[in-house]
């Protein structure tokens, strides 16, 4: 008697479960539209309550936007890109309608069709044609469709601690312009101050990402096109020279400190605490160091263009706003309106930029006027810079080397196919060089090339 009862119970439970989960699958997401037919737009990127000035500004932006766009209601969330929850929220159709992602992610999201193109909506905007193509390039696919808008576009540079430079007998107004100079400066900083002269990230794909920018400065690239398909260009003299530079700094000069296995947050945290001399990063790390990691002496922050070794190139970088593929059409229109209002217009219209800078500057903890690459033309950026000048609270002089050096460099995009997977392969290479004294660079690159070729072939099947 017991068995049939158990079987029946299991069947009833299974049926109930399936019915319930089935219901969950067909129930529309709660945020489709509000009762009055208004579009309710859930957007990531709302500042945290601790960042009071930025949060107040965000709330005012929302009010202004809603006043100008009746029928659209904005619901801000503090969420940002989180790979752990993104997939589940995407599958459950609970992902926000506008997501904020670091610039390492867009190409992967585009390739997996997790985000949707917004070119059509962007084209409705009067100034669309004036966008700096270099800024949109990392957010576009090979067919030229655009998938996002950057918050503040940057090019990678070299961030350095001006105080440690002075302590080490270096001139903080003449930062290194070549990798030979970086090596010498790092050695001097380590010897004179006992701090790490230079650090290279190596965890969570950032190792591969930073090796890519280092390789660009040595004249290489990570993927090349052959007969319409991309193959890896990892086993290349430029990458080899980059790794040998790291190897020499780590083991011969002993100028990279003891702590490896770092990601960007680890590095900026150490930098904000005055524990390291130099790292590859954008001027955007100033904001991170000041507002997130509480850097007290922001006057110690310096940034220059990415040092070179024959490549004359750098890599772009920024936070980006994108629209997930699951968002319905009418919400995409609203999302692009919001993005143009919140992100693009203040980087085009001097009056709007000035108003926002003024408001933000009320809080001394905020970082106002961190220089960026022009989102539009240089002339337009000059107008913006002039308009916000009275409210700037960052030490603009300390960004001069980056501002002056970067326009002389070519802004190269990330590897076009499966950049993140390539970075995973390269992370291992960087980690080996940084943690094994006797790492064989040639052998590592040969293996990485084979792994990358196999991965790229599978990706382009």
């Amino acid at each position, binding site marked *: *008697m*017991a068995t049939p*009862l*158990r079987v*029946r*119970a299991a069947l*009833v*439970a*299974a049926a*109930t*479960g*399936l019915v*319930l*989960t089935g219901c969950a699958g067909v129930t529309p997401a709660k945020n489709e539209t509000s009762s009055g037919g208004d579009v309710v737009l859930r957007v990531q990127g709302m500042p945290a309550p601790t960042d009071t000035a930025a949060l107040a500004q965000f709330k005012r932006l929302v009010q202004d936007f809603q006043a100008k766009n009746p029928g659209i209601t904005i619901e801000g969330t503090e969420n940002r890109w989180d*790979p*752990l929850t*993104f*997939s589940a929220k*995407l*599958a459950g159709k609970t992902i926000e309608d506008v997501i904020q992602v670091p610039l390492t992610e867009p190409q*992967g999201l585009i390739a*997996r*069709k*997790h985000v949707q193109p917004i070119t059509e909506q962007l084209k409705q905007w009067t100034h669309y044609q004036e966008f700096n193509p270099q800024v949109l390039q990392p957010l576009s696919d090979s067919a030229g469709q655009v998938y996002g808008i950057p918050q503040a576009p940057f090019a990678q540079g070299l961030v350095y601690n001006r105080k440690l430079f002075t302590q080490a007998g270096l001139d903080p107004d003449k930062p290194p312009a070549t990798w030979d100079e970086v090596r010498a400066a790092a050695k001097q900083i380590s010897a004179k101050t006992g701090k790490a002269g230079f650090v290279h990230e*190596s*965890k*969570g*794909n950032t190792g591969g990402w930073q090796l890519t920018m280092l390789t660009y400065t040595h004249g290489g690239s990570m993927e090349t096109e052959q007969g319409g398909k991309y193959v890896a260009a990892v086993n290349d003299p430029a990458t080899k020279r980059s790794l040998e530079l790291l190897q020499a700094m780590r083991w011969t000069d002993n100028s990279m*400190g*003891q*702590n*490896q*296995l770092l990601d960007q947050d680890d590095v900026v945290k150490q930098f904000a605490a005055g524990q390291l001399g130099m790292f590859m990063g954008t001027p955007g790390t100033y904001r991170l160091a000041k507002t997130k990691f509480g850097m007290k002496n922001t006057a110690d922050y310096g940034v220059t263009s990415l040092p070179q070794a024959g490549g004359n190139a750098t890599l772009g970088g920024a936070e980006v706003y994108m629209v*997930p*593929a*699951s968002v319905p059409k009418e919400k995409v229109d609203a999302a692009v309106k919001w993005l143009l209002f919140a992100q693009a217009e203040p980087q085009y219209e001097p009056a709007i930029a000035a108003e926002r800078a003024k408001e933000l500057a009320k809080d001394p903890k905020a970082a106002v006027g961190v220089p960026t690459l022009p989102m539009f033309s240089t002339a337009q950026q000059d107008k913006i810079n002039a308009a916000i000048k009275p409210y700037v609270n960052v030490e603009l002089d300390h960004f001069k080397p980056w501002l002056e050096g970067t326009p002389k460099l070519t802004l190269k995009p990330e590897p076009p196919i499966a950049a*993140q*997977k390539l970075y*995973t392969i390269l*992370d*291992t290479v960087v*980690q*080996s060089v*940084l*943690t*094994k004294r006797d790492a064989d660079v040639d052998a590592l690159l040969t293996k990485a090339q084979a*792994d990358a070729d196999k991965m790229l072939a*599978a990706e382009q099947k």
Partner: protein
Amino acid sequence: MTTLLERRAAAEPAATAPQPRASRRRAGLRRELLGLLFLAPSLVVFGLFSWWPILRGLLISFQQTNLVDPAVWVGLENFRTVLSDPLVGKALLNTLLFVGLGLVIGFPAPIVLAAVMSTVRRFAGVYRVVVYLPVVVPPVVAILLWKWFYDPGSGLFNQLLGLVGLGPYPWLQSPNTAMLSLVLEATWAGMGGAALIYLAAMTGVPSELYEAAESDGAGIWRRIWHVMLPQLRPVIGLLLLLQLIGTIQVFTEPYIFTQGGPDDATLTVLLLIFRYAFQDGQYGQAAALSVLLAIVLAVLSAVYLRLTRSWSTK
């Protein structure tokens, strides 16, 4: 529940007047439905949060999906891709290394600790609290704390070892020592619970056995070897299997300490599954590797069930 219903069903006809067969069947059905009604909430919760995800995971392992567009059936393609990934072999070896080191270091530690605690008379409660304390520290907090202990420059361990002229050691920073460092933390974090179970089992060993052994001239080691350990055998066996199943699924330590590095030295199977799914967006491959891992765990569980059954009948 089932047993109770059956008993009642068996007892009732004797107490009441004989009923027609159809009426009896109706009454039985009503009782069954009532039982199911009480069961329903648990069944729904299990169905929703355990069975459906398991079923869905199994389905996804045969599909290619980005979780937005309709999934495409790809047969065994995901399994083939996963099995041809050289990292799978590496992750498996690393996982086995973690399991092995866990057995060598982590397994005897709570037994020794419990044996020591069982002989200590003064401040016994204090020792128990101290030993159990790491268990109540949230794993992430414990790992972040140990990350500082392991810091190659200013970390606690290197500072202490430096006082006696040892080190500095790279701990997490070297492929040779990273996995060992993870096991040490995991042992510290997990041994409190096991030690208390052993302690309880040790107090259950009749003192006459020790006394008899002692009067036969057995020293402390022979008493431990010939009296205590044989008495603890069932508990040791169970905890051994539980540890095996637990350590095969190690994720938090490598994820927070090293993210699999350096040089993939701490890349475990679960971390690789995580990478497939959340770093590369290859949900099918992640599900396929999960299914393979589930099969291994199912075999272990079968062994566990078989052993517990044989022990309980002894």
